[in-house]
């Protein structure tokens, strides 16, 4: 619980400095993965039908990172959460936290192992018969922590989540966001290595969502945790995650650091994070349309005006989005160039500056 920054910050700074290096650049791991899921399968028997809910999910999350798993409903998110916490035993495969295997242990070992994972639920799942302080104390009571120690710890945790004055309130008296804060404090009370958040903001309004995500990030920084967020909201990934996996039909179909997945212009995650309209405007003058994707300080750099100046053409930005994702700014712009412009030279110029270029069909 010291104040030193997690290793990921160092790594990101180096990418910022060398922003012209392609974002696909692979970085050697300097910390061992903390959560490792290997070839996880879960098969249900539903009467005659066999349902494959998880079809070989593998992923690892490095220590100190916030990893998002995004997927539509029915993609297998809930099953994955239940398998990660061993509420359901996977059919095959392994789940390890801190290199300690969870999936194939006895019930008693499983209870000990579960305390290494703090879990935050979509609807907080607080006990209505307990006050805020008693809810946070729950995991400590389970292991017979002395009363005085519980009181100290609960006070510290309530301060961390900003609910000191609500210690004696019952869940029914709290707002959705406050309940989720209690849920986070409770998840942290057993000193877990991993915070597993299952749709933590899906029942909250946008402003409260921002607050809860900010809290999760600050908790990660202050307690040096590894965080796994399962969600269907791309906004959560944009705001909070360092890396992301796309779960679809029980498989991970895309996986990587935010910077990496965003930089792949044909990737589904990139298109979802920096969306672009599918159709070109009908009244577009004749010419060539290019989609540009670039990152880092370039987003502030005059890429567009540099084309205009260097090649003496009119550049028309017809669509685009610019977003701060993690430590970086990303821009996805659609530009229209007039007929007769030297497309090859312009493309080469852009590529040399680390901009990914995807031509759209000419008009």
């Amino acid at each position, binding site marked *: 619980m010291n104040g030193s920054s997690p290793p990921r910050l160092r790594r990101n700074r180096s990418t910022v400095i060398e922003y012209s290096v392609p974002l696909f650049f692979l970085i050697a791991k300097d910390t061992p993965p903390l959560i490792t899921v290997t070839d996880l399968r879960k098969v249900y028997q539903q009467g005659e039908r066999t349902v494959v809910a998880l079809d070989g999910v593998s992923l690892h999350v490095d220590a100190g990172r916030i990893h998002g798993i995004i997927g539509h409903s029915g993609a297998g998110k809930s099953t994955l959460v239940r398998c990660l916490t061993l*509420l359901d035993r996977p059919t095959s495969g392994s789940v390890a936290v801190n290199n300690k295997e969870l999936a194939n242990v006895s019930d008693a070992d499983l209870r000990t192992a*579960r305390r290494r994972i703090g*879990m935050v639920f979509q*609807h907080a*799942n607080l006990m*209505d018969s307990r006050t805020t302080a008693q809810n946070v104390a729950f995991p400590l009571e389970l292991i017979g922590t002395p009363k005085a120690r519980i009181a100290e710890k609960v006070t510290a945790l309530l301060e961390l989540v900003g609910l000191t004055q609500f210690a004696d309130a019952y*869940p*029914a008296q709290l707002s959705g966001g406050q309940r989720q804060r209690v849920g986070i404090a409770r998840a942290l009370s057993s000193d877990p290595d991993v915070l597993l958040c299952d749709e933590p903001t899906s029942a909250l309004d946008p402003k409260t969502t921002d607050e809860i995500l900010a809290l999760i990030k600050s908790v990660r920084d202050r307690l040096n945790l590894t965080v796994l967020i399962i969600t269907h909201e791309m906004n959560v990934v944009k705001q909070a995650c360092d890396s992301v996996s796309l779960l679809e039909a029980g498989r991970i179909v895309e996986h990587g650091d935010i910077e990496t997945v965003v930089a792949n212009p044909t990737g589904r995650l990139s298109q979802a994070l920096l969306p672009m309209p599918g159709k070109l405007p009908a009244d577009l003058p004749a010419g060539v349309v290019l989609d540009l994707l670039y990152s880092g300080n370039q987003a502030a750099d005059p890429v567009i005006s540099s084309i205009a100046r260097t090649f003496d053409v009119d550049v028309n930005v017809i669509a685009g989005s610019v977003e701060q994702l993690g430590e970086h700014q990303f821009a996805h712009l659609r530009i229209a160039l007039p007929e007769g412009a030297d497309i090859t030279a312009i493309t080469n110029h852009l590529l040399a500056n680390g901009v990914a270029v995807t031509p759209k069909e000419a008009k």
Partner: protein
Amino acid sequence: MDFFNDLVTNPGITKAMLPAFLETLQMTGISGFFTVLVGLPLGILLLNTAKGGLTPIPWLNFVLSSIITNITRSIPFAILMLSLIPFATLLVGVSLGPVAASVSLTIGTIPFFARLVESALRDVSTGKIDAALVMGSTKMQVTRKVLVPEALPGIIAATTTTIVTLIGYSAMAGLVGGGGLGRLAYNYGFQRYDGTVMIVTIVIMVILVQLVQILGDWFARLVDHR
């Protein structure tokens, strides 16, 4: 004026009413206590051993649910009580009076109460149980620290309903030798055509049931933080 005069002179009221009332309280008290004592764990077992429960044990659940609970509940109470007289004699040494009647009352009410407890426990959301399990609770801890406290308002409501039912059953028990207000109403009100005693008994029963219900509701609200 005859009616009011009768109220203070009728021996059925001045002499027999108080002991009968106390016998009713005694029957309700004893059988209520043992019903909760046995019915609460039985309700918990019914839920936890069921399919999808914390510790599914199909055969035990079948025995508890289908055989004991449902069969006992399907026998009309008057018949159940008569058939249990030999058992009551064996257990408490007497076949008549409020204590003997309490044995049959208890046995007749346990399954009813257990079902009410089971349904109150079933209302505790699975999310809370999952949360407790993920935090590393044993199944015993889930039951003691989550299921029962979270279902407490429902369990208290079930207890209130059960006590009200017991007051009614105890009157029926009075007819077959249990004593209490039931026998008083039968002996005086029915056999002697004594309308005054009948009316007073009914009024007392109504007030008693109202008091129990008000007390139960108040207590349920006290523990309900939902």
